[in-house]
């Protein structure tokens, strides 16, 4: 399972109303270039080329639950499936979750698949969001 890494800006952005994780459109984009914790907006990243089923900016992840229980907030997202069609999707290694509704496409976290992934024509890459642990929690 890909490991989650938080962008530093997220903690301040949450505190300063940049995110409404219950309603904003959250997207997952792919990159081959390692993000760093100090990146803050989508423009800081080098996204893979669009085409063959991959849309620039990535794909929206449906919000399944945005709620707290006993004081711990958990964000549960549905999976995102990238399907290569008409050719291979450009190689990638990292999936980045960001807020497409925020004015600057503010970053939330990234997932490292630990090696370069090739998605050949007709193949899929499923960004598998663990429902029980959630994508992130805030306690």
């Amino acid at each position, binding site marked *: 399972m890909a490991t989650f890494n938080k962008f530093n800006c997220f903690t301040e952005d949450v505190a300063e109303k940049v995110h409404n994780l*219950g309603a904003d459109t959250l997207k997952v984009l792919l990159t081959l270039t390692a993000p760093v914790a100090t990146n803050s907006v989508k423009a800081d990243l080098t996204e893979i080329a669009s085409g063959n089923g991959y849309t620039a900016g990535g794909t929206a992840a449906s919000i399944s*639950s945005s709620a707290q229980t006993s004081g711990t907030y958990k964000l549960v997202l*549905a999976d995102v499936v990238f*399907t290569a069609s008409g050719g291979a999707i450009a190689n990638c290694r990292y999936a980045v979750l960001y807020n497409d509704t925020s004015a600057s496409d503010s970053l939330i976290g990234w997932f490292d698949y630990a090696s370069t992934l090739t998605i050949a024509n*007709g193949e*899929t890459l499923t960004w*598998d969001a663990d429902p*029980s642990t959630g994508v992130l929690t805030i306690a």
Partner: protein
Amino acid sequence: MLDQLTESVERATVEYNAESTKDAPSKSKLDELSARIKSARKAVSDHIASGANPCKCGASPIGYRKTEAYMHRGQPFAAVYSILCVGCTIDARGNTPEEAVKRWNAGKLTPRPQQ
């Protein structure tokens, strides 16, 4: 029915995004639309989790479509639905809401990855 409920969420989300990206969005409108999204999402969850027993912790589980149906190398993969307790780290899955609820009620939970 599920498609209609899901469309309600999508419509509310589109309206919310349209308001959010205005130069001067209305806070009251955003609050109203945000509440509508949550309400529509709850309706989807209630529909999928219909018949699911409470979690052992006492909380009512939520239901959602975890993965859309898709094709991989020409082979079809069915959608995956999850019944999940937000407070605990447990869920049950099935290729239909009914199957997921049945597995949840039978205690057939998704195995957790070994640490």
